[in-house]
């Protein structure tokens, strides 16, 4: 999967927010608040370019003290939210 072009992670009043700024995202018309873990996953997904749930879950396990099963469940839930909001493809 990929994060769609034009979506940007911004720090707004101390919180992590996804906004649509690029030409392909300009009609998004809303802001998506991310918790700290989701923001961390977003950055990893951006770095990876083409990412998978397994890849992000592994990265999450390497960074945080979390079991592989829990990490994968968290990642899948986050990705399903992103899919629903059409910020990934």
């Amino acid at each position, binding site marked *: 999967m990929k994060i769609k072009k034009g979506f940007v992670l*911004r720090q707004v*009043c101390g*919180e992590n927010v996804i906004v649509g700024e690029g030409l392909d995202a*300009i009609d998004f018309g809303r*802001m998506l608040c991310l918790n700290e873990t989701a923001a961390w996953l977003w950055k990893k997904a951006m770095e990876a370019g083409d990412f998978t749930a397994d890849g992000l879950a592994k990265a999450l396990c390497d960074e945080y003290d979390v079991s592989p099963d829990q990490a994968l469940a968290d990642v899948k839930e986050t990705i399903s939210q992103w899919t629903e909001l059409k910020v990934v493809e």
Partner: protein
Amino acid sequence: MKSTLYYIVAEHLFCVESDESIAALLENYEPFRAAFTEAGQALFSLSVVNDGPVEYVEEWRQDEEGQETVCGHIGPDDSVFEFRWGGRSAGWLVCEAGYRIGTLHLSGFQTKAALDNSLMILFAMASACTGTVLFHSAVVSLDGRGYMFLGKSGTGKSTHARLWLQNIPGTELMNDDNPAVRIKSDGTAVVYGTPWSGKTPCYRNVSAPLGGIVLLSQAPYNRIVRLKGIGAYAAVVPSISGKRWDARIADGLHETENALATYIPVWHLDCLPDADAAHLCKDTIAL
């Protein structure tokens, strides 16, 4: 005969180079005229020539009440904005050097509007990374502070500003449509009148510390609530002009918007177009 005229808006210097027939159309800029000796480093310069059309690659277009702006580019560094009314082209603004140099190629139709649009675009883009934003807003002053009213077209920004003027002694209209706001080096925000004011000829070279920002919605009652954090940011962003798919511009605008949402009181006013709305608003936001 070409002439160069200098102006200072929101403490930014810019210049317009044109022949006399164009210079005669710049009446609304007169209160902002600067002497050449004050010139120094201009934020941007605009040259006006009568040689449209310009060929370019289209990126995006925006349609607002019969007025269409088409954005595009020529090379990788040159942006183009074409202005159309009722499908007919008025001019093509070509921007170079990070919006520091603009050339407006006129068609001969709607010259004044193309000129104003070009100067607003250059001002908004060239100043975006200097803590300056151009708002779509009506703004009044009271007791030395500026209060801005935001909302979609047709919401009643001008109407609410007029209600303050009619019902709250000491209120003055600073600008009715396009004030500028600057974050100063000490972190305070200042709102400025500009040569652009929509349908109301209010071209005042005035400024005031920004006391509050109010997003208006029409409602069958009057109610005001404070917005904070992301809510305040989301209220402010849609009222600020810019080309957000240019990442450098977007970063600059975001920084200013975030500062405003963090440090300036932002409110949401559900309101009727009546005196009570102005009093409720004033009693809540003006200390």
